[in-house]
């Protein structure tokens, strides 16, 4: 396997607030390879958005402070880049689309201005060429009558159209990495289906890696090759989509997948997770899931932070839980590995899954 395109290593981010220091990210590790779609899932406050805003250098500081770790993109550490170095990467090599298309577009500038502006900032290109290219991109995102749309203001567009504009804006420079932060959460299901279709098509036309942040596990499984599950500022588990559904290993992941109401198998009662997410102001030592964990082992869970451990032997399935570390003797009450093909032939399987 080649070097990752993006490698987040042991990232720690704190927010300084009136209530105290919120330890929002506590050693996040995440890698994104070329032409790969990584889904990052987790509940609100788990740090998925904060992680990606750190990559973009868009954390508001203060109150945010990156206190440790590195984010390597294409050989450079983004955390040590100056603002102007970052501006050469942002929008050009890494782009981001955001959760709420209603507030993420500037209400007083035309769509055309907002899309072509990215090109004008990064390319030596005439205004007319930038406009032409923008129109093509809007068209590629499935927007009807793109010429006319260029002169419209965002408020006259529906949510789905705005999100397509956001996607066009993010991809007009053909970046290597697209970060999509809950891009369909604010949209209706039929519109969500349209937007996902656009993303899938664009991905097959352009070689772009995508980080897809969401709380919707079924949704991300439609597009992702690999999933990272986050909990309370840490990465609990990363593995292929197939593995996640067939054989989730982290107790949190298992609980999470069970608590989603399923369309195909109506249950009378949904399994839920006892307790609540611990406060990230002065969080507990050890595993952050310990207090809610049905597989709680003992003291080691409370005192030692579990590291992401490779359980598949190929680096394709990592879990941060003492059931799988050397710290504890305990072993999980469910099978860890079997004849599962994903673990043995990672590349072929995941590539196939991502480019349907």
């Amino acid at each position, binding site marked *: 396997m080649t070097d990752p395109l993006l490698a987040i290593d042991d990232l720690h981010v704190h927010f300084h607030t009136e209530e105290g220091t919120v330890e929002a990210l506590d050693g996040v590790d995440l890698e994104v390879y070329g032409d790969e779609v990584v889904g990052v899932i987790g509940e609100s406050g788990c740090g998925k958005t904060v992680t990606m805003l750190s990559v*973009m250098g*868009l954390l*508001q500081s203060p109150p945010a402070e990156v206190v440790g770790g590195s984010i390597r993109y294409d050989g450079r550490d983004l955390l040590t880049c100056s*603002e*102007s170095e*970052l*501006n*050469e*990467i*942002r*929008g*050009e090599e890494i*782009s*981001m689309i*955001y959760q*709420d298309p209603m*507030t*993420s*577009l*500037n*209400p*007083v*500038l035309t769509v055309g201005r907002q899309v072509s*502006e*990215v090109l004008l*900032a*990064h390319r030596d290109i005439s205004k007319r060429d930038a406009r032409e290219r923008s129109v093509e991109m809007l068209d590629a995102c499935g927007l009807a009558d793109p010429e006319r749309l260029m002169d419209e*203001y965002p*408020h006259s567009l529906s949510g789905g159209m705005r999100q397509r504009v*956001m996607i066009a*804006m993010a991809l007009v420079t053909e970046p290597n990495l697209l970060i999509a932060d809950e891009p369909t959460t604010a949209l209706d299901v039929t519109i969500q289906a349209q937007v996902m279709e656009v993303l899938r098509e664009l991905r097959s036309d352009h070689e772009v890696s995508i980080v897809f942040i969401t709380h919707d596990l079924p949704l991300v499984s439609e597009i992702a090759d690999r999933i990272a599950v986050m909990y309370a500022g840490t990465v609990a588990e990363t593995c292929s989509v197939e593995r996640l559904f067939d054989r989730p290993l982290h107790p949190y992941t298992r609980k999470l997948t069970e608590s989603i109401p399923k369309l195909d198998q109506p249950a009378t009662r949904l399994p839920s997770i006892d307790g609540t997410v611990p406060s990230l102001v002065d969080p507990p030592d050890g595993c952050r899931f310990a207090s809610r964990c049905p597989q709680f082992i003992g003291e080691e869970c409370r005192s030692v932070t579990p590291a992401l451990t490779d359980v598949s032997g190929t680096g394709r399935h990592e879990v941060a839980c003492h059931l799988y570390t050397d710290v504890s003797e305990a072993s999980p009450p469910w099978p860890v590995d079997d004849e599962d093909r994903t673990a043995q032939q990672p590349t072929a399987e995941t590539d196939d899954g991502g480019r349907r």
Partner: protein
Amino acid sequence: MLKYIIRRLLVMVPVVLGVTVVISTLIYLSPGNPAQIALGQNANPEAVARLEQQMGLNKPPHLRYVDWLTQALQGNLGRSLETGTPVTDLIVERLPATLELAFASLAIMLVIALPLGVVSAVRQYSWVDNASMLFAIFWLSMPSFWLALILLLLFAVHWDFFPISGRAGALLSVTALSYLVLPAIANGARRAGLLTRMMRSSMLEILNKDYIRTAKGKGIGQRSVIYSHGMRNAMIPIVTLLGLQVPSLISSSVIVEVVFAWPGMGRLLVDAVLRRDYPVVQGVTLMYAVIVIVANLLVDIAYSYLDPQISYD
């Protein structure tokens, strides 16, 4: 848009009518008899009565109002009781000076407040921000008549940088401009303080918006983020504030005009009030009302240019 402007102009009619009723009532209620003042304290009561009749002061107030209104609708605001000059002529003569002062004050406000407010917001809690805070409090806590006198004493009398008072015709020469500087500062600088703070908080709010984050994420550089994406949005509440400031700008310009002997409508008004020159008072106040209403209309039009989400149809 045109439809909207027409509607606004139609709405103006009852408002202006209301203003005239209020002014007439106030004048009727105010003490002092113009005929007596014109003829002096020791005048013959018969002569006073004769003059009252001439002036139409012996008619009941509502008839006087109707008379005045009928004339006013034909463009005749009456004649000054003192000089006999038509009130319209007086207003036309003084209006340019008043508008000059108003626009100069406005320009000073904007030139100081906008850049300072933006810089304060972008560099929140920096020395620029603190300095602008001090600046704002300094000007805000200064009454304009006092400020006018101090400026006059320091810059005109003591250092002789600018002429003491008066106006040298239209703004075509440096001399003419130099007469305008102190009155404009006295009138504008004070409001610039308030406007700076408003601009700062408005800009701060905008800088926290999602679309500013989007813009930063596009890597277009801070200048573009602030000026192309931030400024225009931040100006929207500022324009509202400017609209609200017009009446107070006018009332303080009356004082400033008196202090600097600036020959605008404000001084005309004050003189007329002192002499109970009612037709002039009535005419000038009416003119001020029209200016305020038109200014607000202009603000609303400016709105629709700044904010494409506002459409007036």
